[in-house]
Protein backbone atom coordinates (compact mmCIF):
# COMPACT_ATOMS: atom_id res chain seq x y z
CA UNK A 1 0.00 0.00 0.00
CA UNK A 2 1.20 3.48 -0.78
CA UNK A 3 0.37 6.72 0.95
CA UNK A 4 -1.48 7.23 4.20
CA UNK A 5 -4.53 5.03 4.67
CA UNK A 6 -7.59 7.23 5.19
CA UNK A 7 -9.52 6.79 8.39
CA UNK A 8 -13.04 6.75 6.88
CA UNK A 9 -14.92 3.66 5.76
CA UNK A 10 -12.86 1.16 3.78
CA UNK A 11 -15.69 0.75 1.29
CA UNK A 12 -18.44 3.22 0.61
CA UNK A 13 -21.36 2.31 -1.63
CA UNK A 14 -23.93 4.92 -2.73
CA UNK A 15 -27.17 4.25 -4.59
CA UNK A 16 -25.77 1.14 -6.23
CA UNK A 17 -28.26 -0.39 -8.65
CA UNK A 18 -28.13 -3.22 -11.15
CA UNK A 19 -30.80 -4.27 -13.62
CA UNK A 20 -30.87 -7.54 -15.52
CA UNK A 21 -33.42 -6.72 -18.22
CA UNK A 22 -36.62 -5.81 -16.41
CA UNK A 23 -35.40 -7.39 -13.17
CA UNK A 24 -33.74 -5.09 -10.63
CA UNK A 25 -31.31 -7.35 -8.75
CA UNK A 26 -29.82 -4.59 -6.57
CA UNK A 27 -31.89 -1.48 -5.88
CA UNK A 28 -30.12 1.73 -4.74
CA UNK A 29 -28.03 0.15 -2.03
CA UNK A 30 -26.03 2.56 0.12
CA UNK A 31 -23.73 1.31 2.85
CA UNK A 32 -20.37 1.91 4.50
CA UNK A 33 -18.00 -0.86 5.50
CA UNK A 34 -16.20 0.16 8.69
CA UNK A 35 -12.44 -0.09 8.59
CA UNK A 36 -11.10 -3.21 10.29
CA UNK A 37 -14.54 -4.73 10.69
CA UNK A 38 -15.75 -8.20 9.79
CA UNK A 39 -19.06 -7.24 8.25
CA UNK A 40 -21.61 -9.98 7.64
CA UNK A 41 -23.84 -9.66 4.60
CA UNK A 42 -26.96 -11.78 4.94
CA UNK A 43 -30.23 -12.26 3.15
CA UNK A 44 -32.26 -14.97 1.45
CA UNK A 45 -31.27 -16.50 -1.90
CA UNK A 46 -31.81 -13.99 -4.69
CA UNK A 47 -31.51 -11.00 -2.36
CA UNK A 48 -28.72 -9.55 -4.51
CA UNK A 49 -25.72 -10.26 -2.25
CA UNK A 50 -23.47 -11.79 -4.89
CA UNK A 51 -24.56 -9.20 -7.49
CA UNK A 52 -23.57 -6.48 -5.01
CA UNK A 53 -20.21 -8.22 -4.46
CA UNK A 54 -19.63 -8.49 -8.19
CA UNK A 55 -20.27 -4.78 -8.69
CA UNK A 56 -17.98 -3.78 -5.84
CA UNK A 57 -15.28 -6.13 -7.16
CA UNK A 58 -15.56 -4.80 -10.72
CA UNK A 59 -16.82 -8.06 -12.22
CA UNK A 60 -20.15 -6.45 -13.09
CA UNK A 61 -20.86 -2.85 -14.15
CA UNK A 62 -23.48 -1.07 -12.04
CA UNK A 63 -26.53 0.39 -13.78
CA UNK A 64 -26.35 3.33 -11.38
CA UNK A 65 -24.51 4.39 -8.24
CA UNK A 66 -20.94 4.68 -7.01
CA UNK A 67 -18.36 2.61 -5.11
CA UNK A 68 -15.41 4.14 -3.25
CA UNK A 69 -12.44 2.17 -1.91
CA UNK A 70 -10.42 3.94 0.81
CA UNK A 71 -12.08 7.17 -0.25
CA UNK A 72 -11.20 6.85 -3.96
CA UNK A 73 -13.92 6.35 -6.55
CA UNK A 74 -13.59 2.91 -8.20
CA UNK A 75 -17.01 2.77 -9.89
CA UNK A 76 -16.86 0.81 -13.13
CA UNK A 77 -13.17 -0.03 -12.85
CA UNK A 78 -12.56 -3.55 -14.21
CA UNK A 79 -11.92 -6.40 -11.83
CA UNK A 80 -8.21 -6.58 -12.76
CA UNK A 81 -7.62 -2.95 -11.74
CA UNK A 82 -8.77 -3.45 -8.15
CA UNK A 83 -6.44 -6.13 -6.80
CA UNK A 84 -3.44 -3.80 -6.87
CA UNK A 85 -5.54 -1.15 -5.11
CA UNK A 86 -6.06 -3.44 -2.15
CA UNK A 87 -9.40 -5.09 -2.87
CA UNK A 88 -9.48 -8.88 -3.11
CA UNK A 89 -12.34 -11.35 -3.37
CA UNK A 90 -13.07 -15.06 -3.27
CA UNK A 91 -15.82 -16.95 -5.04
CA UNK A 92 -18.92 -18.76 -3.83
CA UNK A 93 -17.78 -21.84 -5.73
CA UNK A 94 -13.96 -21.92 -5.46
CA UNK A 95 -12.12 -21.12 -8.68
CA UNK A 96 -8.59 -22.48 -8.37
CA UNK A 97 -6.40 -22.67 -11.48
CA UNK A 98 -6.86 -26.42 -11.59
CA UNK A 99 -3.98 -27.52 -13.83
CA UNK A 100 -1.48 -25.40 -11.91
CA UNK A 101 0.22 -26.30 -8.66
CA UNK A 102 -1.06 -24.86 -5.40
CA UNK A 103 2.17 -22.85 -5.13
CA UNK A 104 1.84 -21.49 -8.69
CA UNK A 105 -1.73 -20.42 -7.89
CA UNK A 106 -0.32 -18.24 -5.13
CA UNK A 107 2.86 -17.09 -6.93
CA UNK A 108 0.69 -15.75 -9.72
CA UNK A 109 -1.05 -13.15 -7.62
CA UNK A 110 1.40 -10.32 -6.82
CA UNK A 111 0.81 -7.36 -9.14
CA UNK A 112 3.39 -5.82 -11.51
CA UNK A 113 5.90 -8.69 -11.55
CA UNK A 114 8.92 -8.02 -13.78
CA UNK A 115 8.62 -11.42 -15.45
CA UNK A 116 4.97 -10.88 -16.23
CA UNK A 117 5.67 -9.01 -19.47
CA UNK A 118 7.24 -10.48 -22.60
CA UNK A 119 10.22 -8.12 -22.40
CA UNK A 120 10.72 -8.75 -18.69
CA UNK A 121 10.51 -12.54 -19.03
CA UNK A 122 12.98 -12.63 -21.94
CA UNK A 123 15.46 -9.89 -21.11
CA UNK A 124 15.33 -8.91 -17.44
CA UNK A 125 16.19 -12.38 -16.21
CA UNK A 126 18.30 -11.28 -13.25
CA UNK A 127 15.78 -8.90 -11.83
CA UNK A 128 13.05 -11.45 -12.44
CA UNK A 129 14.93 -14.16 -10.53
CA UNK A 130 15.56 -11.90 -7.52
CA UNK A 131 11.94 -10.85 -7.42
CA UNK A 132 10.76 -14.43 -7.89
CA UNK A 133 12.81 -15.61 -4.91
CA UNK A 134 11.21 -12.94 -2.74
CA UNK A 135 7.69 -13.74 -3.98
CA UNK A 136 8.32 -17.44 -3.40
CA UNK A 137 9.33 -16.88 0.24
CA UNK A 138 6.21 -14.83 0.78
CA UNK A 139 4.03 -17.44 -0.97
CA UNK A 140 5.46 -20.26 1.14
CA UNK A 141 4.85 -18.27 4.33
CA UNK A 142 1.27 -17.54 3.32
CA UNK A 143 0.62 -21.19 2.36
CA UNK A 144 1.94 -22.23 5.76
CA UNK A 145 -0.30 -19.62 7.37
CA UNK A 146 -3.40 -21.16 5.74
CA UNK A 147 -2.07 -24.69 6.50
CA UNK A 148 -1.57 -25.63 2.83
CA UNK A 149 2.24 -25.68 2.94
CA UNK A 150 2.43 -29.44 2.51
CA UNK A 151 0.26 -29.29 -0.61
CA UNK A 152 2.37 -26.67 -2.41
CA UNK A 153 3.31 -28.96 -5.30
CA UNK A 154 -0.10 -30.59 -5.73
CA UNK A 155 -2.33 -29.69 -8.67
CA UNK A 156 -4.86 -27.19 -7.35
CA UNK A 157 -7.67 -29.13 -9.03
CA UNK A 158 -6.97 -32.17 -6.83
CA UNK A 159 -7.31 -30.64 -3.35
CA UNK A 160 -10.56 -30.66 -1.34
CA UNK A 161 -13.25 -27.98 -1.61
CA UNK A 162 -12.38 -26.58 1.80
CA UNK A 163 -8.70 -26.45 0.91
CA UNK A 164 -9.64 -24.59 -2.27
CA UNK A 165 -11.32 -21.94 -0.12
CA UNK A 166 -8.13 -21.61 1.92
CA UNK A 167 -6.16 -21.41 -1.33
CA UNK A 168 -8.36 -18.54 -2.52
CA UNK A 169 -7.67 -16.74 0.75
CA UNK A 170 -3.93 -17.34 0.28
CA UNK A 171 -4.05 -15.93 -3.26
CA UNK A 172 -5.90 -12.88 -2.00
CA UNK A 173 -3.30 -12.29 0.72
CA UNK A 174 -0.46 -12.07 -1.83
CA UNK A 175 -1.80 -8.66 -2.82
CA UNK A 176 -1.62 -7.26 0.74
CA UNK A 177 -5.29 -6.27 0.55
CA UNK A 178 -6.99 -3.74 2.82
CA UNK A 179 -10.36 -5.39 2.28
CA UNK A 180 -11.32 -8.95 1.31
CA UNK A 181 -14.77 -9.94 0.06
CA UNK A 182 -15.54 -13.55 0.99
CA UNK A 183 -18.53 -15.23 -0.68
CA UNK A 184 -19.78 -18.04 1.59
CA UNK A 185 -16.36 -19.06 2.93
CA UNK A 186 -17.75 -21.72 5.26
CA UNK A 187 -20.29 -23.32 2.91
CA UNK A 188 -19.54 -27.00 2.32
CA UNK A 189 -16.30 -26.87 4.29
CA UNK A 190 -15.66 -29.56 6.87
CA UNK A 191 -15.71 -28.26 10.47
CA UNK A 192 -11.97 -28.51 11.13
CA UNK A 193 -11.06 -26.56 7.98
CA UNK A 194 -13.84 -24.06 8.69
CA UNK A 195 -12.32 -23.50 12.13
CA UNK A 196 -8.91 -22.85 10.61
CA UNK A 197 -10.48 -20.45 8.13
CA UNK A 198 -12.23 -18.49 10.89
CA UNK A 199 -9.08 -18.32 13.03
CA UNK A 200 -7.10 -16.99 10.09
CA UNK A 201 -9.77 -14.42 9.22
CA UNK A 202 -9.78 -13.19 12.80
CA UNK A 203 -6.00 -13.06 12.95
CA UNK A 204 -5.83 -11.07 9.71
CA UNK A 205 -8.54 -8.79 11.02
CA UNK A 206 -6.41 -8.12 14.11
CA UNK A 207 -3.64 -7.09 11.74
CA UNK A 208 -5.91 -4.53 10.10
CA UNK A 209 -7.58 -6.30 7.18
CA UNK A 210 -11.30 -5.57 6.73
CA UNK A 211 -13.67 -8.34 5.65
CA UNK A 212 -17.10 -8.45 4.10
CA UNK A 213 -18.55 -11.92 4.33
CA UNK A 214 -21.64 -13.29 2.59
CA UNK A 215 -22.85 -16.19 4.70
CA UNK A 216 -26.02 -18.22 5.06
CA UNK A 217 -24.92 -19.93 8.24
CA UNK A 218 -26.48 -17.62 10.87
CA UNK A 219 -24.55 -19.26 13.64
CA UNK A 220 -21.33 -18.29 11.82
CA UNK A 221 -22.54 -14.72 11.25
CA UNK A 222 -23.66 -14.16 14.82
CA UNK A 223 -20.42 -15.53 16.26
CA UNK A 224 -17.86 -14.01 13.93
CA UNK A 225 -19.34 -10.96 12.20
CA UNK A 226 -20.07 -7.49 13.48
CA UNK A 227 -21.79 -5.42 12.19
CA UNK A 228 -24.43 -7.16 10.10
CA UNK A 229 -26.13 -5.93 6.93
CA UNK A 230 -29.24 -7.65 5.60
CA UNK A 231 -30.47 -7.47 2.02
CA UNK A 232 -33.86 -8.52 0.70
CA UNK A 233 -35.11 -8.13 -2.84
CA UNK A 234 -32.15 -5.97 -3.70
CA UNK A 235 -32.57 -3.50 -0.85
CA UNK A 236 -30.87 -2.98 2.50
CA UNK A 237 -33.43 -3.96 5.15
CA UNK A 238 -31.18 -3.94 8.19
CA UNK A 239 -27.86 -2.42 9.23
CA UNK A 240 -26.58 -2.67 12.78
CA UNK A 241 -24.65 -4.59 15.37
CA UNK A 242 -25.05 -8.30 16.00
CA UNK A 243 -26.84 -7.49 19.26
CA UNK A 244 -29.33 -5.30 17.42
CA UNK A 245 -29.80 -7.97 14.77
CA UNK A 246 -30.54 -10.56 17.41
CA UNK A 247 -33.04 -8.21 19.05
CA UNK A 248 -34.88 -7.39 15.84
CA UNK A 249 -37.97 -9.60 15.74
CA UNK A 250 -38.68 -8.95 12.06
CA UNK A 251 -35.16 -9.88 11.04
CA UNK A 252 -35.19 -12.95 13.21
CA UNK A 253 -38.44 -14.08 11.72
CA UNK A 254 -37.56 -13.24 8.12
CA UNK A 255 -34.01 -14.60 7.96
CA UNK A 256 -32.86 -16.36 11.02
CA UNK A 257 -35.93 -18.55 11.08
CA UNK A 258 -35.58 -19.63 7.47
CA UNK A 259 -31.81 -19.81 7.41
CA UNK A 260 -31.41 -22.61 9.92
Amino acid sequence: MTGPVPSGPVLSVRGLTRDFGPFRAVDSVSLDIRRQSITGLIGPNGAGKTTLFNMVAGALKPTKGTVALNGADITGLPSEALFARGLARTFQIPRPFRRMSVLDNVLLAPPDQTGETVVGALFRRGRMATEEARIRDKARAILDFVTLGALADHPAGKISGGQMKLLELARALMGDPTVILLDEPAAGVNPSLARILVERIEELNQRGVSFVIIEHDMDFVMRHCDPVIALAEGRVVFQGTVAEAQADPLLLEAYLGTAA
Partner: protein
Amino acid sequence: MIGVISYLVFFATMAGILAIVVLGLNLQWGYTGLFNGGVAAFFGAGAYVTMLLGGRPEPGQFGGFLAPFPVAIVGGILFAGLIAWFFGVLTLRLRHDYLAIATFGVAIALESVARNAEWLTGGAKGLRGFPRPLEATITALGGGDNFLYGLFFLALVLAVLAAVYVGLERLTRSPYGRALRAIREDEAAARSLGKNPVRLRLESFVIGSMIMGAAGGLYVAFYAYVGPQDLAPILTFQVWAMLIVGGAGNNRGAVLGAFLIWAAWTASGFALAALAPQAMQLYTGPIQYILIGSVIVGMLLWRPQGILPEQIRQQGRN
Protein backbone atom coordinates in the same frame (compact mmCIF):
# COMPACT_ATOMS: atom_id res chain seq x y z
CA MET B 1 23.01 -44.45 -49.58
CA ILE B 2 23.49 -40.77 -50.38
CA GLY B 3 19.93 -40.88 -51.68
CA VAL B 4 18.62 -42.03 -48.31
CA ILE B 5 20.65 -39.43 -46.41
CA SER B 6 19.56 -36.80 -48.84
CA TYR B 7 15.96 -37.77 -48.26
CA LEU B 8 16.42 -37.74 -44.48
CA VAL B 9 17.83 -34.20 -44.72
CA PHE B 10 14.81 -33.18 -46.77
CA PHE B 11 12.46 -34.88 -44.30
CA ALA B 12 14.10 -33.29 -41.24
CA THR B 13 14.02 -29.84 -42.83
CA MET B 14 10.29 -30.04 -43.44
CA ALA B 15 9.64 -31.58 -40.01
CA GLY B 16 11.72 -28.80 -38.43
CA ILE B 17 9.70 -26.11 -40.21
CA LEU B 18 6.47 -27.77 -39.05
CA ALA B 19 7.84 -28.05 -35.50
CA ILE B 20 8.22 -24.26 -35.47
CA VAL B 21 4.55 -23.92 -36.45
CA VAL B 22 3.52 -26.37 -33.72
CA LEU B 23 5.50 -24.37 -31.13
CA GLY B 24 3.56 -21.27 -32.20
CA LEU B 25 0.26 -23.09 -31.76
CA ASN B 26 1.43 -24.47 -28.42
CA LEU B 27 1.87 -20.93 -27.07
CA GLN B 28 -1.66 -20.09 -28.21
CA TRP B 29 -3.52 -23.26 -27.33
CA GLY B 30 -1.27 -25.16 -24.93
CA TYR B 31 -0.51 -22.24 -22.65
CA THR B 32 -3.26 -19.70 -23.31
CA GLY B 33 -6.21 -21.86 -24.38
CA LEU B 34 -6.74 -19.96 -27.64
CA PHE B 35 -8.36 -22.23 -30.21
CA ASN B 36 -6.68 -21.13 -33.44
CA GLY B 37 -8.53 -22.88 -36.26
CA GLY B 38 -6.64 -20.96 -38.94
CA VAL B 39 -2.99 -21.94 -38.41
CA ALA B 40 -2.54 -22.10 -42.21
CA ALA B 41 -3.50 -18.42 -42.53
CA PHE B 42 -0.57 -17.19 -40.43
CA PHE B 43 1.88 -19.68 -41.93
CA GLY B 44 0.72 -18.69 -45.42
CA ALA B 45 0.80 -14.97 -44.67
CA GLY B 46 4.45 -15.30 -43.64
CA ALA B 47 5.19 -17.40 -46.70
CA TYR B 48 3.55 -15.08 -49.25
CA VAL B 49 5.04 -11.88 -47.86
CA THR B 50 8.51 -13.42 -47.64
CA MET B 51 8.11 -14.42 -51.29
CA LEU B 52 6.83 -10.99 -52.37
CA LEU B 53 9.71 -9.22 -50.65
CA GLY B 54 12.54 -11.63 -51.39
CA GLY B 55 11.42 -13.24 -54.66
CA ARG B 56 12.53 -12.52 -58.23
CA PRO B 57 10.64 -9.94 -60.29
CA GLU B 58 8.22 -11.32 -62.89
CA PRO B 59 6.56 -9.26 -65.63
CA GLY B 60 3.01 -8.22 -64.75
CA GLN B 61 3.45 -9.43 -61.19
CA PHE B 62 3.60 -7.31 -58.06
CA GLY B 63 6.49 -8.02 -55.70
CA GLY B 64 9.79 -9.65 -56.53
CA PHE B 65 11.78 -6.99 -54.71
CA LEU B 66 14.79 -9.28 -54.25
CA ALA B 67 15.15 -8.18 -50.63
CA PRO B 68 17.87 -10.06 -48.71
CA PHE B 69 16.41 -13.16 -47.04
CA PRO B 70 16.59 -11.83 -43.44
CA VAL B 71 14.69 -8.70 -44.48
CA ALA B 72 12.13 -10.71 -46.43
CA ILE B 73 11.42 -13.17 -43.62
CA VAL B 74 11.17 -10.40 -41.02
CA GLY B 75 8.61 -8.78 -43.32
CA GLY B 76 6.70 -12.06 -43.42
CA ILE B 77 6.84 -12.41 -39.64
CA LEU B 78 5.61 -8.85 -39.12
CA PHE B 79 2.77 -9.31 -41.59
CA ALA B 80 1.65 -12.54 -39.89
CA GLY B 81 1.73 -10.62 -36.59
CA LEU B 82 -0.21 -7.74 -38.08
CA ILE B 83 -3.10 -9.87 -39.32
CA ALA B 84 -3.10 -11.77 -36.02
CA TRP B 85 -3.33 -8.46 -34.19
CA PHE B 86 -6.11 -7.21 -36.44
CA PHE B 87 -8.27 -10.33 -36.17
CA GLY B 88 -7.26 -10.79 -32.54
CA VAL B 89 -8.64 -7.41 -31.56
CA LEU B 90 -11.88 -8.35 -33.35
CA THR B 91 -12.26 -11.90 -32.08
CA LEU B 92 -10.34 -12.55 -28.87
CA ARG B 93 -13.30 -11.59 -26.73
CA LEU B 94 -15.09 -14.57 -28.24
CA ARG B 95 -15.33 -17.85 -26.43
CA HIS B 96 -13.11 -20.72 -27.55
CA ASP B 97 -15.40 -22.36 -30.08
CA TYR B 98 -16.32 -19.07 -31.73
CA LEU B 99 -12.67 -18.07 -31.93
CA ALA B 100 -12.00 -21.37 -33.72
CA ILE B 101 -14.71 -20.64 -36.28
CA ALA B 102 -13.53 -17.05 -36.78
CA THR B 103 -9.88 -18.03 -37.33
CA PHE B 104 -10.92 -20.88 -39.62
CA GLY B 105 -12.83 -18.26 -41.62
CA VAL B 106 -9.75 -16.03 -41.79
CA ALA B 107 -7.77 -18.90 -43.30
CA ILE B 108 -10.47 -19.64 -45.88
CA ALA B 109 -10.68 -15.95 -46.79
CA LEU B 110 -6.91 -15.65 -47.22
CA GLU B 111 -6.82 -18.82 -49.33
CA SER B 112 -9.49 -17.27 -51.51
CA VAL B 113 -7.47 -14.06 -51.87
CA ALA B 114 -4.38 -16.11 -52.75
CA ARG B 115 -6.32 -18.03 -55.39
CA ASN B 116 -7.89 -14.98 -57.04
CA ALA B 117 -5.71 -11.88 -56.63
CA GLU B 118 -3.44 -12.86 -59.50
CA TRP B 119 -1.53 -9.57 -59.71
CA LEU B 120 -0.46 -10.05 -56.09
CA THR B 121 -0.29 -13.78 -55.43
CA GLY B 122 0.04 -15.36 -58.85
CA GLY B 123 -3.43 -16.89 -58.44
CA ALA B 124 -3.83 -20.66 -58.54
CA LYS B 125 -0.35 -21.27 -59.92
CA GLY B 126 1.27 -19.43 -57.04
CA LEU B 127 4.62 -17.66 -56.97
CA ARG B 128 7.83 -19.33 -58.02
CA GLY B 129 11.53 -18.48 -57.95
CA PHE B 130 13.16 -17.46 -54.72
CA PRO B 131 16.87 -16.78 -54.34
CA ARG B 132 17.78 -18.95 -51.37
CA PRO B 133 20.12 -17.47 -48.76
CA LEU B 134 23.82 -18.14 -49.63
CA GLU B 135 22.85 -20.80 -52.16
CA ALA B 136 25.46 -19.95 -54.81
CA THR B 137 28.30 -19.70 -52.30
CA ILE B 138 27.55 -22.94 -50.52
CA THR B 139 26.76 -24.93 -53.64
CA ALA B 140 30.12 -23.83 -55.05
CA LEU B 141 31.80 -25.01 -51.84
CA GLY B 142 30.15 -28.38 -52.31
CA GLY B 143 31.58 -28.70 -55.79
CA GLY B 144 28.33 -27.85 -57.55
CA ASP B 145 26.36 -30.59 -55.78
CA ASN B 146 23.31 -29.34 -53.88
CA PHE B 147 23.62 -31.85 -51.02
CA LEU B 148 25.78 -29.46 -48.98
CA TYR B 149 23.24 -26.70 -49.44
CA GLY B 150 20.53 -29.06 -48.21
CA LEU B 151 22.57 -29.64 -45.06
CA PHE B 152 23.12 -25.91 -44.63
CA PHE B 153 19.43 -25.20 -44.95
CA LEU B 154 18.60 -27.93 -42.43
CA ALA B 155 21.06 -26.33 -40.02
CA LEU B 156 19.39 -22.96 -40.58
CA VAL B 157 15.94 -24.43 -39.86
CA LEU B 158 17.20 -26.23 -36.76
CA ALA B 159 18.86 -23.03 -35.53
CA VAL B 160 15.59 -21.10 -35.88
CA LEU B 161 13.74 -23.99 -34.22
CA ALA B 162 16.21 -23.96 -31.32
CA ALA B 163 15.94 -20.18 -30.92
CA VAL B 164 12.12 -20.33 -30.90
CA TYR B 165 12.19 -23.24 -28.46
CA VAL B 166 14.54 -21.51 -26.02
CA GLY B 167 12.61 -18.24 -26.25
CA LEU B 168 9.31 -19.99 -25.58
CA GLU B 169 10.72 -22.03 -22.71
CA ARG B 170 11.93 -18.82 -21.07
CA LEU B 171 8.60 -17.14 -21.67
CA THR B 172 6.40 -20.00 -20.51
CA ARG B 173 8.45 -20.87 -17.42
CA SER B 174 8.36 -17.28 -16.22
CA PRO B 175 5.64 -15.34 -14.40
CA TYR B 176 4.39 -14.50 -17.90
CA GLY B 177 3.67 -18.16 -18.63
CA ARG B 178 2.04 -18.46 -15.21
CA ALA B 179 -0.31 -15.62 -16.06
CA LEU B 180 -1.12 -17.17 -19.47
CA ARG B 181 -1.97 -20.49 -17.85
CA ALA B 182 -4.14 -18.76 -15.26
CA ILE B 183 -6.11 -17.02 -18.03
CA ARG B 184 -6.51 -20.40 -19.74
CA GLU B 185 -7.75 -22.06 -16.54
CA ASP B 186 -10.17 -19.40 -15.27
CA GLU B 187 -10.42 -15.94 -16.71
CA ALA B 188 -12.66 -14.44 -14.01
CA ALA B 189 -10.40 -15.68 -11.22
CA ALA B 190 -7.29 -14.38 -13.01
CA ARG B 191 -8.93 -10.98 -13.41
CA SER B 192 -9.81 -10.89 -9.73
CA LEU B 193 -6.07 -11.26 -9.09
CA GLY B 194 -5.22 -8.30 -11.28
CA LYS B 195 -4.30 -10.09 -14.52
CA ASN B 196 -5.48 -8.47 -17.75
CA PRO B 197 -6.80 -11.23 -20.02
CA VAL B 198 -7.30 -9.05 -23.09
CA ARG B 199 -3.65 -7.96 -23.16
CA LEU B 200 -2.29 -11.44 -22.39
CA ARG B 201 -4.43 -13.24 -24.95
CA LEU B 202 -3.69 -10.72 -27.69
CA GLU B 203 0.06 -10.91 -27.03
CA SER B 204 0.04 -14.70 -26.98
CA PHE B 205 -2.01 -14.82 -30.18
CA VAL B 206 0.24 -12.35 -32.01
CA ILE B 207 3.52 -13.92 -30.88
CA GLY B 208 2.30 -17.43 -31.73
CA SER B 209 1.19 -16.23 -35.17
CA MET B 210 4.52 -14.48 -35.80
CA ILE B 211 6.27 -17.77 -35.06
CA MET B 212 3.99 -19.47 -37.61
CA GLY B 213 4.85 -16.68 -40.06
CA ALA B 214 8.56 -17.32 -39.54
CA ALA B 215 8.00 -20.98 -40.41
CA GLY B 216 6.17 -19.87 -43.54
CA GLY B 217 9.16 -17.74 -44.54
CA LEU B 218 11.54 -20.68 -44.13
CA TYR B 219 9.17 -22.87 -46.12
CA VAL B 220 9.22 -20.43 -49.05
CA ALA B 221 13.00 -20.32 -49.03
CA PHE B 222 13.12 -24.13 -48.92
CA TYR B 223 10.75 -24.83 -51.82
CA ALA B 224 11.27 -21.52 -53.66
CA TYR B 225 7.54 -21.70 -54.25
CA VAL B 226 4.27 -20.75 -52.54
CA GLY B 227 0.72 -21.42 -53.71
CA PRO B 228 -2.85 -21.31 -52.40
CA GLN B 229 -2.73 -24.95 -51.31
CA ASP B 230 -0.18 -23.88 -48.67
CA LEU B 231 -3.08 -22.04 -47.01
CA ALA B 232 -5.39 -25.06 -47.13
CA PRO B 233 -7.05 -26.38 -43.94
CA ILE B 234 -5.10 -29.66 -44.09
CA LEU B 235 -2.03 -27.86 -42.74
CA THR B 236 -4.06 -26.59 -39.79
CA PHE B 237 -5.24 -30.14 -39.05
CA GLN B 238 -1.76 -31.62 -39.36
CA VAL B 239 -0.36 -29.04 -36.95
CA TRP B 240 -3.17 -29.68 -34.48
CA ALA B 241 -2.55 -33.43 -34.70
CA MET B 242 1.14 -32.81 -33.98
CA LEU B 243 0.37 -30.73 -30.89
CA ILE B 244 -2.27 -33.12 -29.54
CA VAL B 245 -0.07 -36.19 -30.04
CA GLY B 246 3.08 -34.53 -28.68
CA GLY B 247 1.39 -32.88 -25.69
CA ALA B 248 -0.20 -29.45 -25.49
CA GLY B 249 1.40 -27.22 -22.87
CA ASN B 250 4.79 -28.89 -23.31
CA ASN B 251 7.28 -27.40 -25.79
CA ARG B 252 9.31 -30.59 -26.04
CA GLY B 253 6.09 -32.46 -26.74
CA ALA B 254 5.23 -30.00 -29.50
CA VAL B 255 8.55 -30.66 -31.28
CA LEU B 256 8.30 -34.42 -30.76
CA GLY B 257 4.74 -34.45 -32.11
CA ALA B 258 5.83 -32.56 -35.23
CA PHE B 259 8.54 -35.09 -36.09
CA LEU B 260 6.37 -38.12 -35.26
CA ILE B 261 3.29 -37.03 -37.18
CA TRP B 262 5.34 -35.83 -40.14
CA ALA B 263 7.07 -39.21 -40.21
CA ALA B 264 3.75 -41.02 -40.00
CA TRP B 265 2.25 -38.79 -42.68
CA THR B 266 5.16 -39.33 -45.05
CA ALA B 267 5.35 -43.07 -44.34
CA SER B 268 1.61 -43.50 -44.88
CA GLY B 269 2.03 -41.73 -48.23
CA PHE B 270 4.78 -44.15 -49.26
CA ALA B 271 2.91 -47.17 -47.94
CA LEU B 272 -0.29 -46.27 -49.74
CA ALA B 273 1.57 -45.62 -52.98
CA ALA B 274 3.31 -49.01 -52.71
CA LEU B 275 0.49 -51.14 -51.33
CA ALA B 276 -2.83 -49.70 -52.40
CA PRO B 277 -4.37 -51.49 -55.41
CA GLN B 278 -4.28 -49.69 -58.74
CA ALA B 279 -7.95 -48.68 -58.54
CA MET B 280 -7.43 -47.09 -55.14
CA GLN B 281 -4.38 -44.98 -56.07
CA LEU B 282 -6.54 -41.93 -56.78
CA TYR B 283 -7.82 -41.97 -53.21
CA THR B 284 -4.58 -42.17 -51.26
CA GLY B 285 -4.78 -38.44 -50.37
CA PRO B 286 -8.22 -38.72 -48.75
CA ILE B 287 -7.11 -41.93 -47.00
CA GLN B 288 -4.24 -39.97 -45.45
CA TYR B 289 -6.77 -37.36 -44.26
CA ILE B 290 -8.82 -40.11 -42.64
CA LEU B 291 -5.70 -41.49 -40.97
CA ILE B 292 -4.75 -38.12 -39.49
CA GLY B 293 -8.33 -37.58 -38.30
CA SER B 294 -8.25 -40.99 -36.63
CA VAL B 295 -4.98 -40.13 -34.89
CA ILE B 296 -6.49 -36.93 -33.45
CA VAL B 297 -9.67 -38.66 -32.29
CA GLY B 298 -7.84 -41.69 -30.89
CA MET B 299 -5.39 -39.54 -29.00
CA LEU B 300 -8.15 -37.36 -27.54
CA LEU B 301 -9.99 -40.50 -26.41
CA TRP B 302 -7.12 -42.46 -24.90
CA ARG B 303 -4.38 -40.00 -24.02
CA PRO B 304 -5.72 -36.45 -24.22
CA GLN B 305 -2.66 -35.05 -22.44
CA GLY B 306 -0.36 -36.25 -25.26
CA ILE B 307 2.88 -38.24 -25.16
CA LEU B 308 4.68 -35.60 -23.06
CA PRO B 309 2.00 -34.03 -20.84
CA GLU B 310 2.10 -30.53 -19.41
CA GLN B 311 4.06 -30.29 -16.18
CA ILE B 312 1.85 -29.18 -13.32
CA ARG B 313 4.79 -27.92 -11.29
CA GLN B 314 6.52 -25.32 -13.40
CA GLN B 315 7.65 -22.78 -10.88
CA GLY B 316 7.08 -25.07 -7.91
CA ARG B 317 10.45 -26.82 -8.11
CA ASN B 318 13.19 -25.64 -5.88
